[in-house]
């Protein structure tokens, strides 16, 4: 790459509004120059459907405590978690539960779609609607680049969809306006995509990775030849195209150089990755997520855990989540939800345990990770947006006063009430994006004069 071309690209990107250098390439550059970033911040967003009922994740000791008019902020480490969350007891010092944040600027019903992490109203019953901005998980991925900048793993697709496996677009994460993050719904394919450069389930995967270099080299050569026939005033456009393939070459060589590290941390390939049992597929996707973080392949993973159409048969449940949400079936909705929550807690605990076992800096990888468990339809099956509960596991690099806390914000409309826009603003601020406010404001709160529209001060370090 010559000096002038970089120069041209840089000036072009000013006007084109596009990022011609991916964050990853920029990081590679920094590292190569000896400016390696400190330990990266890592995030896992686990998105469940059908709502998280606030009462279900509230410790017995904190139930019935009035918090309508002021923030209820308590130490979580010396109370018992609900029995369905028992698996998380060993991680209580790094666990936090946040309740009471409203999200009325998002769509209610079966799914808020991109609203949950993008903070705006979008979509209909079956359609995810317009993508107007990068969702907060993707914004965090941009701040923490890696060979795979943002990994999306899904068990199911759109809220009510029956689609199964392959590339999926569940309508929850966007990397930019109009650009949805693709999710991989087949653990075996995800395995190949993430670890195929070093180990592979099939010989084909490994071979494909190796051969891909031929394509990148061909494209780079080809575009260089063509460039000669293009008027010099238009070369910038071909340079942008050329530069993109050169970036792919760089990633390819970076992954090749990480081969041993990737191979050492790849999960052992078992029939888990080709299972058609939903609960097993969930386990497989969680294994892939943990292993990718540990291998340094990515720093941000979003997992689409289930959808409204899915049935937890292996757990002995006879109704799909939609039926449960509509009080069908032989058990009560609460009983069903307890069974499912127990299973989810176990998945989360297993991931936390894996990360805790990896030493990093003065502590371990869990200290520098934030696993955020949330729902795409706020507080219940047909989300009201009145409150959006979060369960967080991990130390998050000590950037927020969260680990070991239980927080409940004042009710919607009460003085001091806060929104999920404030929540994501807090995360972005804590991890390097000093944005004043992320997302759409709640106009009703704004008119009542009770919108703060900024980070949650009590969480900032």
């Amino acid at each position, binding site marked *: 790459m010559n*000096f002038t071309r970089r120069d041209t690209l840089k*000036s072009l990107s000013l006007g084109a509004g596009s990022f011609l250098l991916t964050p990853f390439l920029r990081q590679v550059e920094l590292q*190569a120059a000896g400016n390696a970033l400190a330990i990266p911040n890592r995030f896992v967003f686990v998105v469940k459907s059908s709502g998280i009922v606030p009462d279900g994740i509230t410790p017995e000791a904190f139930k019935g405590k009035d918090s309508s008019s002021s923030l209820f902020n308590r130490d979580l480490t010396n109370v018992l978690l609900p029995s369905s969350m028992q698996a998380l007891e060993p991680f209580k010092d790094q666990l936090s539960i946040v309740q009471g944040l409203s999200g009325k600027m998002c769509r209610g019903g079966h799914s808020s779609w991109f609203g949950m992490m993008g903070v705006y*109203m979008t979509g209909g019953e079956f359609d995810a609607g317009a993508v107007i901005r990068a969702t907060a998980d993707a914004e965090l991925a941009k701040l923490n680049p890696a060979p795979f900048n943002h990994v999306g793993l899904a068990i199911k697709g759109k809220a009510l969809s029956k689609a199964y496996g392959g590339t999926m677009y569940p309508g929850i994460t966007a990397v930019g306006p*109009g650009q949805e993050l693709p999710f991989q719904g087949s653990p075996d394919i995800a395995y190949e995509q993430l670890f195929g450069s070093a180990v592979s389930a099939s010989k084909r995967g490994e*071979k494909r990775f190796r*051969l891909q270099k031929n394509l990148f080299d061909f494209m780079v050569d080809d575009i260089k030849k063509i460039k000669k026939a293009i008027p010099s005033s238009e070369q910038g456009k071909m340079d942008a*195209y050329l530069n993109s393939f050169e970036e792919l*070459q760089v990633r390819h060589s970076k992954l090749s150089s990480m081969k041993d590290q990737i191979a050492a941390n790849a999960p052992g390939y078992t029939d888990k990755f080709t299972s058609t049992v939903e609960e097993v597929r969930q386990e497989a996707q969680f294994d892939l997520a943990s292993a990718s973080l540990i291998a340094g392949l990515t720093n941000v993973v979003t997992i689409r855990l289930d959808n409204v159409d899915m049935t937890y048969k292996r757990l002995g449940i006879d109704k799909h989540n939609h039926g449960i949400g509509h009080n069908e079936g032989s058990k009560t909705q609460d009983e069903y939800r307890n069974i499912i929550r127990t299973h989810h807690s176990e998945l989360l605990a297993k991931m936390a345990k894996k990360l805790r076992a990896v030493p990093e800096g003065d502590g371990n990888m869990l200290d520098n990770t934030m696993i955020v468990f949330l729902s795409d339809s706020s507080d219940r099956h047909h989300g009201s947006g009145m409150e959006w509960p979060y369960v967080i596991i991990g130390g998050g690099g000590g950037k927020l006063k969260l680990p070991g806390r239980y927080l409940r914000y004042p009710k919607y409309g009460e003085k001091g009430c806060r929104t999920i826009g404030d929540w994501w603003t807090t995360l972005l601020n804590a991890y390097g994006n000093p944005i004043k406010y992320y997302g759409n404001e709640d106009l*009703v709160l704004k008119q009542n004069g009770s919108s703060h529209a900024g980070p949650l001060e009590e969480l900032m370090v």
Partner: protein
Amino acid sequence: MIKKIHTSVLFVVTVLTISSLFSPNLFSDETDKKSRLLSKLADKKRFDETILPFLNEFCAGCHSETKQEADVVFSGISFDLASGEDMELWKNVLKQLHLEEMPPAESKQPEQYQKDAVMLWINSELKKSGNASDLYTKLESPGFGNYVNHEKLFSGEIRAEPFSLARLWRTSPRVFDNVKSSYGKGSKHFRQPFLLEDKIGIKDYANLLFADSAVVSVLMSNAASAADELIKDSAIASSSGSPSDAKLDSAISQHFRKVVYREPRKDELNNYSILFRKTAEEGGNAEAMRLVLMAVMLHHESVYRVEIGLGDSDSFGRRILSGTEMAFAIAYALTDRRPDATLLQAAATGKLNNSKDARYQVTRMLQDDRIEKPRILRFFQEFFGYAEAHKVFKDEDRSGGFAYYGENYPAMYEKDADFFVMNILEKDKDVFRQLLTSDEYYILNRATFRNTVYDFYKKNKRQLDKGQLPESKEKELLQRLNLKGWHELNKKYNLHNFNKGFNGSVAAIKKIVDEQYSWMNTKDENVLLHRMQALYKKYPMVYDLKDEEQDFLLPQPYKRPHRAGMLTHPAWLIAHSLNDSTDPIRRGKWVREHLLGGVIPDIPITVDASIPENHNKTLRERLFKTEQQECWRCHKKMNPLGYAFEMYDDFGRYRTAEKLTKGGTKPVNANGELTGTGEKNVDGDVKNALELIHKLAQSDKVRQNMIRHVFRYFMGRNEMLTDSKTLIAADQAYLENGGSFNALLISILSSDSFLYRKTLEPTTRHAP
């Protein structure tokens, strides 16, 4: 300052890293390095002799230590741009001079050659420091087109022969949608690689769109999923032996024709073949074929259309587009599809070589209403910006019933506005004036179509029950629905999926009648004909109609009082409003820039652009803040135009009083002032938007400005002074044909600006 240093560090790092990762031949050699070092020395001599005296003479009066207007001070400014000092200030000077924003009109003006010398110096110093001003890129965006002097452009004094620069233009997302099926079965998993920026205004602009890494990552995954499917049917992929050259070439050519849309050249075939052989040796035929197919799909011509001008050159240093280039240019100007058979045939047989040929083809396509030409309506959507209404979220409670669930009211108002535009275009008379002033609106929803068909059935029940529908009757129904034929149905109406196949047959009419009976569960004629679903009840409110006041039945339009054309259409008013209020400033800015050809500089970064809260004042009263002296310099170009629209609330409803935020009302003040046409009977005070709009509609300058925007959209670039002849001819064509938009289009799409190309070095494009 910190940011600046950071950028330059990163820049050096970029070069270092890339050099360690790539082959050395990419890098500048020793001599190059030396010359770069030498050239880094700032040109202090010129600074002392030319630049400093200029600053002292023309700028220091207001921007000195003693009088720091707008916080800008030139005393002690650093000449050493390479050091990064005062870089932003210098960039600002460059911009102000280039755009003639400074010195202000009332001050002493420098001669052009003096300004040129300063701009030249800044540009060359910027270049030495490895920086560039974003000014020149910005100048190519539609918002900056107005900087080209209007009076000169239309004066007739410019005799230059028009041309466009030889260029690449990134594939449009709609063309991609229409061609992707030619990539085979795998295309059902395709994602859109060619996204356009989501903003109000003209979006598809040749010089602003690049195939960058975001585009390539989508292209790669598309190509992979297409190739995965294609190799399943490939004889070569499933064979193990080495295929013959002929067999391989034929397979590649077949694929190439489908996706690149021409025959591959010999050297291209040869390159693909080398890629295949090399890869097959390492990984077998299937993987090799997969990569070759992907490489073809990533061919640069499916990413950029190339308009170099491959035809004959003339004595003015221009080259005309070749027949094929012309066929693509015309097709992509009007449609979202590749050229039709007639265009390709003309290109192949040498009948698409000049302006006359182009005129013939464009006329043919405009006259044939079976050819869909979505690009025409899209111009009006992007020019007026009304199609963005659905993105402005309005509070349901405050509006008194705006619905966003199920169907989204603002999105439906946009369809009404489309209908309004399409009907004016069909008449093709006095188009711009009609768009600006017509008070005949269409108010439609999905029930409109069904209720109208039901009404038609009731009126012709005897015949229809016998299964008869004479041609004259069918015509009557078409006329009521404002259609030339059933093929237009889905272009004009947003119907339920199960009504989309309606073809005007007796059976289709009866199906709708049955639906009416079963859904409404009644035989009450009044209900069947006029009742709307509860969802639509509040729909007419933005047209100042009560819930029950109208029944949506066709034929329409509705003549509405207090309205004049698109700028008072609810879709436009909503699109140009804020979440919870109107938006006089941006509305004024829109009128200033789109109709009056004015320019308004970016808001200075030092300004806090928030509107003060005050529960006892109207928005206009609260905007008084912008009428302070330092703000008014720019705001006087916007506010007096935008205030006129205060006669509507932010949902687009006519009002005489404004609701205050904490209860109570105050009378609306919609007085404004129109300035800047330079036409005596047009400029002056106006009492509201209606008067403003009727005055605008009389203005020659307004008409010419709309034509300038038509030019920008269809050319995909800003006009240059050398386009003068094209614009004057277009204006004349429009006027001579009674305000025909078609005549205007034919003129532009057969102009030299559209058909001729010239190659210029980038440095001579804008640099002073």
